[in-house]
C-alpha cells in the first residue's frame, strides 16, 4: 500500500504546531497502525530527522497509552479497539490519513502526538479508592458476598483503560464517561458504600476543576470507547451525585 500521512508536529507544549505530509510506501495490511508509524520513524532516523513522538506501550489494547486521533476519530475507524489494535487492512492503497493528538483543553500537547492526561490521575487521586490499609488481617474475601450481576457490572465499568478517547470524542471535551466509570465501579460494590457520598462529590469537583466540559448526552464517548464503557454509568453517577447532594 502507498499512503499519504498528514501528521501533527509540535515541538513542545508552548510551540505552535502544524500538519506535515509524509508519503509512505510498502505498507502491508497485516501491519498494525503503530508498526506503520515505526516504519516511518525508521525512515526519519535514516534521514537524521527527529522522530514522531507518540505514546504507546503494551500494544495489546490494555495499557491505555495510545491517544491518536485518526481521520478525526479517536483510535481510528474501527470500533472497540485502541489505536495499537488497529490494522492497516482497514485502509486502502492511495488513502490519505490524518493523524492528530487527542484534542481537549484539559489534555495539553506535550510533543507531537503526545498529550498530558494527568488530569485523569488527579480525578482518581481525589477519591477513586476504598480507604483500607494493607494490614494482612482484613476480613476473609468470602465474607463479602457480592451479587454476580453487580460484580459483573462493576467489572465492566472497571475495564476502562483511561485512554481519554471519550474526552477526545466529545464536542465539549467532557470527562463524564471516564469519571462515572470509576464512580460506578465502587458504587456497585458493598466495599464502596461507606465513602460513597464523599467519593462522588470529590471526584466530580476535581473533574470540574480540571477544565473538562459538560455532558450533553450526545453519546459519542460511548461509541468511541475502546472498552465499550456504557452511558449507563453517567446516569448512575448523576444519581449518586444527586443523592450525595441531598445528604449534604
Amino acid at each position, binding site marked *: 500500500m502507498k499512503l499519504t500521512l498528514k501528521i501533527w508536529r509540535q*515541538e*513542545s507544549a508552548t510551540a505552535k504546531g502544524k500538519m506535515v505530509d509524509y508519503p509512505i510506501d510498502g505498507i*502491508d*495490511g497485516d*501491519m*498494525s497502525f*503503530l*508498526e506503520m508509524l*515505526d516504519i516511518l*520513524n*525508521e525512515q526519519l*532516523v*535514516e534521514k537524521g530527522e*527527529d*522522530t514522531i*513522538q507518540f*505514546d504507546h*506501550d*503494551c*500494544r*495489546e*489494547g*490494555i*495499557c*491505555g*497509552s495510545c491517544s491518536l486521533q485518526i481521520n478525526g476519530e479517536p483510535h481510528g475507524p474501527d470500533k472497540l*479497539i485502541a489505536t495499537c*489494535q488497529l490494522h492497516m487492512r482497514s485502509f486502502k492503497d492511495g488513502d490519505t490519513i490524518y493523524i492528530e493528538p487527542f484534542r481537549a483543553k484539559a489534555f495539553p500537547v*506535550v*510533543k507531537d502526538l*503526545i498529550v*498530558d*492526561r*494527568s488530569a485523569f*490521575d488527579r480525578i482518581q*487521586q481525589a477519591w477513586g479508592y*476504598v*480507604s*483500607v490499609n*494493607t494490614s*494482612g*488481617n*482484613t*476480613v*476473609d*474475601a*468470602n465474607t463479602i*458476598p457480592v*451479587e*454476580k450481576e453487580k*460484580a459483573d457490572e*462493576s*467489572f465492566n465499568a*472497571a*475495564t476502562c*483503560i*483511561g485512554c481519554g478517547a471519550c474526552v477526545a470524542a466529545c464536542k465539549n471535551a467532557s470527562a463524564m464517561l471516564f469519571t462515572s466509570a470509576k464512580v460506578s*465501579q465502587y458504587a456497585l*460494590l458493598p*466495599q464502596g458504600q461507606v465513602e460513597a457520598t464523599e467519593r462522588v462529590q470529590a471526584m466530580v469537583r476535581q473533574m470540574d476543576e480540571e477544565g473538562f466540559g459538560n455532558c450533553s448526552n450526545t453519546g459519542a464517548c460511548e461509541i468511541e470507547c475502546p472498552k465499550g464503557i456504557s452511558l449507563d454509568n453517567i446516569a448512575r453517577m448523576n444519581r449518586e451525585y444527586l443523592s450525595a447532594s441531598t445528604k449534604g
Partner: protein
Amino acid sequence: MSVLDSKIPKGPLAEKWTNHKNNIDLVNPANKRNIDVIVVGTGLAGGAAAATLAELGYNVKTFCYQDSPRRAHSIAAQGGINASKNYQGDGDSDYRLFYDTVKGGDYRSREANVYRLAEVSGNIIDQCVAQGVPFAREYGGYLDNRSFGGVLVSRTFYAKGQTGQQLLLGAYSAMNRQINRGKIKPYNRHEMMDLVLVGGKARGIIARNMVTGEIERHSAHAVVLASGGYGNVFFLSTNAMGSNVTAAWRAHRRGAYFANPCYTQIHPTCIPVSGDHQSKLTLMSESLRNDGRIWVPKKKEDAEAIRAGKKKPTELSEEERDYYLERRYPAFGNLVPRDVASRAAKERCDAGFGVNKTGQAVFLDFSSAIERYGKEKAFTSGHKNPSKEEVTKLGKEVVAAKYGNLFDMYNKIVDQNPYETPMMIYPAVHYTMGGLWVDYNLQTTIPGCYAAGEANFSDHGANRLGASALMQGLADGYFVLPYTIGNYLSDDIRTGAISTDSPEFEETEKAVKERIEKLMNANGNKSVDSYHKELGLIMWNKCGMARNEKGLKEAVEEIAALREDFWKNVKVPGSATSKNAELEKAGRVADFLELGELFAKDALHRNESCGGHFREEYQTEEGEALRDDENFKYVAAWEYKGKPADAVLHKEDLVFENIELKTRSYK
C-alpha cells in the same frame, strides 16, 4: 563458604516467616516521617510497595516511565492469580501451593521464600477484595476459581481475561489514596538512569525527566527496584514496548549481583510472528488450554499442503491429526506446564510439521470444546436430540462467554475467525525468572537496595507456573517488603535527610550525562531498532527454547561484537533536552547488549537442563529435560567486573529440607 548469605530464618518451614516478623526491628511512627524511600516501577510489586510503605508513614517517591503509574505492564496479565484459599474444597493448602511452585520451578528456587509466598497468598485476595477489585463471582455471590497448567486443583482467582488490569488498578487506587495524603510523590515520565551509593549504601537515584530531558538527583534512605523483567532482550516478546532492564542493570553495575539470567519463560500460546515489521507479540491466555486441543498434522504432506494454502485444517480427519501433548503427556495433556508445552511445539515444528507460512506454528483447536459444550447446553435446555447445527451454535455461545475477548483479539490481529478454524499459536518470550539476587528480606547485595516482583530472581526457580507472577508481585509489595525494609531502616532513624550535594551524587550524575552525550554524538548510520532486532535474533536462535554449547559460545562473541559496533555506529537523532523516544530506546538497548552476553554466559555454564533452560546436550532419550542436582543445585549469582565476559560467579546452594527432589513428570 559462599559470600552470599540468604538470611533464611531458622526453625520449621511453616514458622519461619512468623518468627522472622516477630524478631525484626520496627521503626516507630514518629521516626517513619523522617525516612524517605524511592520505589522504581509502579506495577503490582512497585505500586503495592509504594502504597503500603506510605500507609506506614514513610515518605515515598515513585518513578515510572509511563505517563501514569496505572499503565505499568502488570496491566496486561490476563489469566489470574493463585491463592491457597481452598474455596473449592479440592484439597488445596499452603503446602500444596508451595509444593507445586517448587516442583513447577524444577527445584531451582528457595524453599523458605516460596513457602512464605504461599502463606501470604490468601491475604492478597482478602486485601484486593477489600479494595474493591471486581473478581469473577458465582451466582451465590462468592468468588469463582479456575485451574491453570501444572497443577491439579482450582486455585486461580480471576477477572475475565483482565486480571492483571484489575489488580493493578487496585494497587494504583491504594497509591492514589496516599498521593492524595501527600505521602507518595509520583514522578511519572521519569526514567531511572543510575543508582547512587553513599558509603556503600544505596542512597538515591539519578533520573531523567523524559519530557524536558532534565537530569535529576533524588535521595532516599532506601531504594526499591520493582522495574519488571528483561524479556525484551529478545526484541520480540509479550512485554510492553518500553519494558527494560536498565534500572536493574544499573544496580548490577553498581554491585548488585544478577542471578540466573538464563532462566526465561517462553510461553506456549502466543500469536505467531507474521513478518519482519512485527514490533511485539501477543499472548493468548493459558486459560485457553483448559478447552483448546493442540495439534499438528500427522503426515508431513498435509503440513506442507496447509502451509501452501492448498488444504484447510478443518479438512483433516481426527485420524490425520497428531494431538502431540495428549500423546506424550496423558496425565496432564494440554495442561502441562509452560516450558514443557513450548518445547513440544518447537520439536514438532523443527521436525517439519508447522502449519503457517513460516512453518512456526501449531493449531489450538476449539471444535471439540464447542461440540462438548453445545451438547451439554442443548441437553440442559431440554433438547435431548439436537441437530449438529444446533449443537455448534450453542457451543459457540458458551465458548464466547468464556473466551470472547481473546477470540476477538485473535481475529483482529490474524484476520481469521477462531470459532470456524483453529487458532495458530507459537511460543514467545513472556517472563524472566532470573533477576537481581535478593536475600530472604528481598535485599540485593547492595545494602539498602531492594528488588521486588519480576525484577528479582526469587520464587519461580527455572520455570514459573501460570497465575503465579501476579501473586508474587503483590506478595512482595504488600506483605513482605513493608516488614523487611523496616528492619533495615531502623538503623536510619537518626540519619536525617540524605543530601544530594555529595560527591557521590555529583559523580553519578556526571557519568549519566556523559553516557547520554555519547549516545547523542555517536553519529553513526544505524538505528537503535536495527541493533535491537539483531540482538533479538541472536538471542532467539542461540539462547531461546533450546540451547547448546556451540551456539552459546557464538552468542557470547556475537553480542560482544554487536555491542562494540553499537557504540560506534548507532544513530540517535533529535535532542537530549526534549521528549526523544530514540534516545530512550538507545539507553535501554545499550544495557540489553550487556545483559544479553551475561545471559548467554550463564546458559553456557549451566550444564544441565532445568525448567525454561533446555540444553540439547542434556536430555533423556525421550527428549525430556535432564537436571543435574549434584552439580547445579544452586543459584548462579553474577558479580559485575567491568564487562560481562569478566563477570564472577557466586553460588548459593539450594537446600531442600521439606521437598524431595524428583524428576519432574507430567506423564
